[in-house]
């Protein structure tokens, strides 16, 4: 490690000195690092306007996904109404060509999309962590082979691969979609996490753990990964975003299960019925807009985690200092 560079940066090391003494250090057993990391992240989200907006949007979607029955009173699948009705108080978005209430479909479809987003996001990030961090920490032949495997997958364009696999499986349920997305998307994140873990590899606290006698698995799981939490959360958000887009795209081209209630399948049916040409624009616009807004929510949230990783991006919202001259 080189000498700490005394210089001017946003953290101001050359100026205000020294760490502040711990004011109210909590008594009792140490809070697990997860709690601390969560509170740090919550603070980061609150202090960044973009991220707060994203959090609020995501929160709304989650509420809708959890309690769809409270908001939409109709059964999304029941073709109980007159087809092709326009927007009215009874049908906030109108009805489809099959007489289904579009608003109910959008609301109930949220659940499917969120499940895909979170599960695929978590699975993708999870695999990426295992492969990337293990490759970085184990080094040598392990690194070589894991990286080769990652790189090969990375080079193959994801979307065509998705189509091929999904078609091979004759389309499928939500589970299949999640699996397919996970298998094709983890490589990019694995690469990122490997780089990050590599940069941590020479940190003395890892050598200290090794010299203490810790096993390698312990070091990877307990010492390395917790220091990467913000990056992991950022990767999760990105992966969730892409999962939404990929899943909706697959459903749109008919490789999802057309009977599931989801935004992508709404688009599929809208396309099949030439919704835009026949004067039912909401059938395409409503789910499309929802996809866009949910994607934007994930992307906006990501801003907070960019800043945790790189303090130089922090927007300056501090007391102003009057310059001389």
């Amino acid at each position: 490690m080189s000498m700490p560079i005394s210089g001017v940066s946003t953290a101001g090391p050359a100026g205000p000195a020294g760490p502040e003494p711990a004011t109210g250090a909590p008594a009792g057993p140490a809070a697990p690092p997860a709690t601390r990391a969560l509170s740090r992240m919550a603070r980061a989200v609150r202090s960044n306007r973009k991220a707060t907006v994203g959090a609020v949007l995501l929160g709304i979607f989650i509420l809708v996904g959890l309690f769809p029955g409270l908001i939409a009173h109709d059964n999304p699948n029941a073709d109980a109404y007159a087809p092709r009705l326009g927007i009215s108080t009874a049908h906030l978005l109108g009805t489809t060509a099959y007489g289904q209430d579009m608003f109910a479909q959008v609301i109930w479809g949220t659940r499917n999309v969120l499940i895909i987003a979170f599960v695929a996001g978590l699975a993708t990030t999870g695999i990426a962590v295992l492969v990337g961090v293990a490759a970085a920490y184990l080094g040598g032949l392990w690194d070589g082979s894991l990286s080769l495997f990652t790189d090969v997958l990375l080079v193959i364009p994801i979307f065509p691969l998705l189509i091929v696999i999904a078609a091979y499986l004759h389309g499928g349920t939500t589970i299949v979609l999640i699996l397919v997305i996970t298998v094709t998307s983890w490589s990019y994140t694995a690469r990122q996490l490997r780089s990050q873990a590599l940069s941590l590899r020479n940190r003395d606290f890892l050598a200290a753990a090794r010299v203490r006698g810790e096993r390698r698995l312990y070091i990877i799981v307990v010492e390395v990964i917790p220091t990467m939490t913000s990056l992991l959360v950022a990767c999760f958000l990105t992966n969730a975003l892409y999962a939404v887009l990929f899943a909706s795209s697959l459903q749109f081209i008919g490789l999802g299960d057309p009977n599931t209630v989801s935004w992508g399948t709404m688009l599929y049916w809208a396309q099949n019925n030439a919704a835009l040409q026949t004067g039912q624009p909401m059938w395409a616009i409503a789910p499309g807009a929802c996809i866009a807004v949910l994607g934007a929510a994930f992307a906006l949230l990501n801003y907070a985690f960019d800043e945790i990783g790189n303090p130089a991006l922090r927007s300056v919202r501090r007391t102003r200092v009057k310059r001389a001259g």
Partner: protein
Amino acid sequence: MTDTTDEPLLRTDRLTRHFKIGSALSRRTLHAVDDVSLAIGAREIVALAGESGSGKTTIARLLAKLYQPTSGEIYFAGRPLSSIRSRTDLLRYRGEVPVVFQDPFSATNPVFRASHGILRALTLHRPELSRQQRYDEAQRAFEAVGLAPAAEIMQRYPHELSGGQRQRVGFAQALAMRPKLILADEPVSMLDVSIRIGLLNVMADLRDKQGVSVLYITHDIASARYVADRLIVMYAGHIAEAGPVEEVLARPRHPYTQLLLSAVPDPRAELHVTEETDKGEPPRVIDPTPGCRFRWRCPLAIDECHSVTPPLRELVPGHSAACHVARADAATVAFR
């Protein structure tokens, strides 16, 4: 009953470590450490001094079993390290020979509290202790290195501690394992000057009150003199000179030691600036030929120096130097 006075606590025998560098087409060998035979006794602080590239950090890593030697052997309490096979044996060695690292800002995991490392160390090395006993031991160790109030400091996170405090935490972690020998790799070089003395005093305390030996690796001769009993000077992977610290500093035999001493700034010394021809470039020892590695910078080099690598020879009891020209009876050979 073994005669413990004969066998030193730690001894190396022609310890060597090479690194392969270069591409597959032009493989070359970097000789980081060559033929180093040193010994550390009980209750003593041995300073291992040298510039960057001298091999001192590599020796620390070899002794900590972070690297394997290319050849040669390390004996700890008479037992060769290569005979350590099982995890239990390795764990025991790691508890007896812990390491304190150079950079206090990277040696602690920022995610955990200050107590994390020491509690883990106790869990691994003293499993017979209960949770509460571990906590008490940790507190005792913190107090022994001057971190008070221990309970409160243990709850802090690394970023809430100063560099000096973090280094003390490192020593406390080492102490908790009830070590015989602490490998301290430049523990004070990244600390402010006024804080260094405190840490050096901690090391001296560990030797005096806890009976722990310390291998103090440094490039700062003055601090080596302050705290160490013996001094080993390294140059380009070899030991240049070794002996009791006062003796080596008062009567340096090896021209490199003399150069080093003349370069140390001493505010209390007389002000004099002379024509400086030595640019202070320690060599990277790649595929070396036989001969003294200091010969290109040495004003006393003779023919033999260019062809025969000087062995480490005891010139005066306890004081050895690896130099053809050094003579036991010589008065201090002036460097300039």
